[in-house]
């Protein structure tokens, strides 16, 4: 009899605690839900904050990095003398590897018409080192810029690059607008 009473009492405590916890969980969930979005978050580089430090190439959990150079063609000057393509102090304006800034020769230079050239990034080769971005931003229009390629990125819950970027340029963006592509030059001024 005595034993049964203890058992009942224990069962009562257990179910009240359980009830309390369901309430607490529901509260937390509800609070989060009120402030939630039917969208997901992905990581992206803000090209206007990036300072071309080179960590995108080295700090991604993937190798080669999921960050790639992307080219905003409508910003490009199609220069023959491309600050992103040619290494400073290059011996000739040619496609020879020793004249290229890119360590993996990921930029293809194609003649369009005199005196213009088109520069295309081969993303299979690009390692996201930002050397060309720096060159293009320093001497050109800044049309070359880094972006996380979402086909490659595994969308870490905490991006390893975001945490080590010295410019705080890698941030969460909505999955419905997953890129911060350059292309609207006026943004630079705002």
């Amino acid at each position: 009899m005595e034993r049964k009473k203890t058992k009942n009492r224990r069962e009562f405590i257990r179910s009240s605690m359980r009830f309390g916890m369901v309430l607490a969980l529901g509260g937390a969930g509800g609070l989060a839900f009120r402030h939630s979005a039917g969208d997901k978050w992905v990581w992206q580089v803000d090209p206007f904050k990036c300072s071309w430090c080179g960590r995108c190439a080295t700090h991604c959990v993937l190798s080669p990095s999921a960050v790639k150079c992307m080219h905003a063609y409508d910003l490009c000057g199609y220069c023959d003398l491309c600050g992103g393509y040619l290494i400073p102090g290059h011996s000739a304006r040619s496609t020879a590897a020793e004249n290229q800034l890119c360590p993996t020769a990921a930029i293809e230079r194609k003649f369009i018409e005199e005196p213009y050239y088109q520069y295309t990034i081969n993303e299979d080769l690009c390692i996201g080192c930002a050397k060309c971005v720096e060159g293009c931003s320093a001497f050109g229009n800044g049309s070359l810029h880094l972006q996380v390629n979402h086909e490659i990125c595994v969308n870490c819950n905490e991006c390893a690059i975001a945490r080590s970027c010295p410019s705080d340029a890698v941030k969460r963006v909505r999955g419905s607008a997953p890129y911060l592509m350059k292309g609207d030059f006026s943004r630079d001024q705002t």
Partner: protein
Amino acid sequence: MPFLLLLLIALSVDSTAQQRFPMPEFESGYQHPEVSAPEPRSLALEYIDVLVLLAFLSVTSWLVIRKRSRKWILGLVVAALLYFGFWRNGCICPIGSVQNMALSFSDPGYAVSYTVIAFFMLPLLFSLGFGRVFCGTACPLGAIQDLVIIRPVKVPARVSKSLGMFPFVYLALAVLYASTGTGFVICRYDPFIGIFRMGAEFHLIVLGIAFLLAGMFVARPYCRFVCPYGALLKVTSMFSKHHISITPSQCIECKLCSDSCPFGAIDRPVPERAISEMKGKTGHFMLYAAVIPLLMMAGGWALSSSHIFLSRAHPDVYLAHLLIDNPGVMDDTENLDVQTFLGSDRTMESLVHDAEAIQAAFLRGSWITGAFIGLVAGLFLVSQSIIRRRTGYHPNRGDCLSCGRCLKYCPVQK
């Protein structure tokens, strides 16, 4: 020479607008190519993940409570490892979702996605209903450790109970770091994520392999002594409605199952005699209960007095400290963080201002965190001082991971 010229042109261009070199008017009718911008993994797939998780939890609940089959559970373990581990690359998992939830409560700019809420809530709700069925199969971290258990050694109960406190401390600190926007420490030190992705920083791979090697002998060390989400599951499971039971009907105390659990999660019977023997020694229940508020104060005080130290994990605070304590680093051209800061238009004042705000958040948070740790320590003491009469061999509701290994040892038929 050409570069000098270029530089001159660049400098002479009016900086208010325009590109230095406007896009040319092509005579050949050239059209530039589209930039490829592949979409991230679709939202629909994320919702399928939630459904898969729900399926795993439901089936496991049924398996451990009705079907009582280790073989099926093992099958699900392998499936979970493949799906949540290797295919989905681990993210996002319920363990990490704790931090997303914490961040969403503290940062109004961060709205969690439905997936994250579901991943956080479902395992806990199932734990309240059926015990730690998430640990039993669906957790990829648990799964990979479960498969390497070969010769589990017994960890003395006192040691494992004390080590079992660490997950609570880890949980509290992880919430502190997430809610102050410092970072997601649980993800940063997830030992198995590197294995799931087949690539990570070197120290993570080493950590993962170390855990797996240790896990051959100390079964599922991460789950038992580290996992912060496990701390939540433990508490919810203690009060669960249903739970796996070793015997299908009534335990006859044959002791056959007593050593069958690799995690030492089986409670032995405590006869009346043992209680009366222990009475004199453990009558501190009231004393311990009274001490809890003191422990909470002490914990809060201890942690808050180290809040400056804790806050240094935040990059802004770290940088501000570095620059103030050691102005010489400004000449260090190798230090990327410092050079980037100096090259940016951010002023020292704004950096210090931000750092101070973060430290203030740490001061508040560390009081709460410390008090929580004190509370857990107090409850631990109280629980140690209670001995109850127990009959039969039963899984400990907090510690049992619902793996089903013990089931086949019971000779009792239904």
